[in-house]
């Protein structure tokens, strides 16, 4: 018999995060939190596709970078308002998702994982090769910020991650989410039950790409510049590791994973160049010792008042 959900715990977390600019007089740390929220969007959108359907996307940076470069092109080259960047970044990411998803997701096997990894790597090379358009290694700078005040930016980012995570969690818990998880459980059985698995896998990828692309555009208007590293395997893998720490398939866990890992990496800032090494060691430890992840099981336990999920 499940005990009543302890919503007050969620309320406390939200209250603490919602008042950060008032008690944390440290603009640097506020910036770190904003990054954590944006990574929360990236990770939860990754988990929505890969966690629900079990198809590992190793090139999520493709969507993040696609959104970011779209924002840079529209804003810097064509002088459009930064607010257009968010939907445009999402749409461009959806198109990229179609290009990668249509040929690979109708197949079984590791093709999707390989193609996403390859596509992101090659797009990163292309941003350097086509330097006349993309600015090469330097990237494109002098983007306009979405809003000028840092406090407003903080609330915008917090609102963004909350809305994105809420939409994705609701979708994951909807009948459609159940259908997606049936694909992860047994693709052949789902197909035999009359589910058009290809259609739904691609649909999930497009939703995931849309949020990642919007997140990438948001990120671009926060950093005020974009570069080839937006497409790097580091971004893709960081997102995957955050979802693993969060607990694959829970979606909200990925947001927690992004939050915890970003703050932990920040605490280890003195060893800044070890950051990816640290993430990698965390991933290996999770794979061996906590295959269900850390955040989602912990959260369920807290929520249910101490009883195991």
């Amino acid at each position, binding site marked *: 018999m499940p005990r009543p959900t302890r919503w007050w715990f969620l309320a406390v977390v939200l209250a603490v995060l919602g008042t950060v600019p008032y008690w944390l007089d440290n603009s640097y740390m506020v910036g770190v939190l904003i990054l954590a929220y944006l990574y929360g969007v990236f990770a939860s959108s990754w988990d929505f596709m890969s966690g629900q359907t079990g198809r590992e996307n190793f090139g999520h940076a493709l969507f993040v970078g696609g959104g970011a470069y779209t924002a840079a092109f529209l804003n810097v080259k064509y002088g459009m308002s930064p607010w257009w960047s968010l939907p445009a970044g999402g749409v461009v990411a959806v198109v990229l998702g179609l290009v990668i998803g249509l040929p690979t997701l109708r197949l079984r096997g590791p093709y999707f994982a390989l193609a996403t990894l390859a596509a992101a790597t090659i797009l990163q090379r292309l941003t350097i090769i086509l330097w006349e358009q993309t600015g090469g290694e330097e990237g494109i700078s002098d983007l306009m910020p979405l809003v000028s005040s840092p406090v407003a930016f903080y609330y915008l980012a917090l609102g963004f991650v909350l809305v994105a995570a809420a939409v994705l969690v609701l979708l994951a818990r909807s009948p459609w989410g159940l259908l997606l998880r049936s694909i992860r459980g047994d693709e052949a059985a789902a197909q035999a039950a009359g589910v058009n698995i290809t259609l739904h896998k691609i649909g999930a990828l497009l939703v995931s790409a849309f949020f990642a692309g919007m997140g990438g555009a948001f990120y671009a208007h926060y950093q005020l510049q974009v570069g080839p590293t937006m497409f790097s395997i580091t971004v893709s893998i960081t997102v995957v590791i955050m979802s693993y720490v969060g607990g694959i398939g829970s979606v909200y866990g990925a947001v927690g994973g992004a939050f915890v890992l970003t703050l932990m990496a920040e605490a280890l800032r003195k060893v800044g160049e070890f950051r990816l090494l640290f993430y*990698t060691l965390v991933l290996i430890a999770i794979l061996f010792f906590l295959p269900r992840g850390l955040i989602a099981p912990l959260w369920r336990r807290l929520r249910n008042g101490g009883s195991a999920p």
Partner: protein
Amino acid sequence: MIEIIIYGAVSSAIYAMLAVGFTLIFGVARVLNLSHGAFYALGAYFTYTYNGLLGIPLLVAAVLAVATVAALGVAMERVMVRPLRYSALAVLMITLAMSLLIEQVLLLTFGSETQNVQSLVSDKVTMFGVDIGGQRLLALGVGVVLISGLWLFIQRTRLGNAILAVSQDAEGAQYMGINVNRVFGGVMGMSAALAAAAGVLAAPFSKVEPAMGLLPMTKAFSIVILGGLGSIRGSLLAAAVLGFSETLVGYLVSSSLTELVSLVVILLVLILRPAGLFGKHVAF
């Protein structure tokens, strides 16, 4: 024209060494080894360490480097991959984690600047009126010898037949008394050694840096997809297709577009014939 043929053949040989190892470990153990590119980088870096830092003669250093990476491959299969074999996803993730780990360790040990690895053959050879670096020809020759050796080994020896048996049906092979785990370990070692050899041979004429393996590995992906995952014959043919078409695109269109070739190949193959040239069916 002659240049296109020779340069195309050299990159085909390097790609073939990478792709055959990649497809071998997949075909036999169903392990999609994402640290394959890291093995390639390690080959170059161990050669640099043994020769450039410890002063071991270059040829010995190169052989030692390949042996070291092979041993690492065996160890990685035993310690990291085998305990996670219950889940294909976990295996994929652990090989990815290992590749990042290797890259980061290389970055922290040697820094991000590019290192110089000496050529085994520094002379230029003039063939059909074209100057070709001796190291490139060596890469081509060694590649052909290694791959033919591997082919003969698999087709003609008892151990090779055991590998074939495991690749066809691991459980059935186990009933016949084949130690499947040892075959997995051995194949991982061979696959790592081939990748390292490619790295050693290509090092003098490519940028030796910690992330050097990533792009060749994505090329290897497109080759094995084109050839059919798990098929050695297919990978050889596909390596030639990719090597020559990249060189052709480089000469005829623009060298900046060569990187796109492999991505286009992946997408085209997956749309037109997902099983690849020689794959009997789509993998899994």
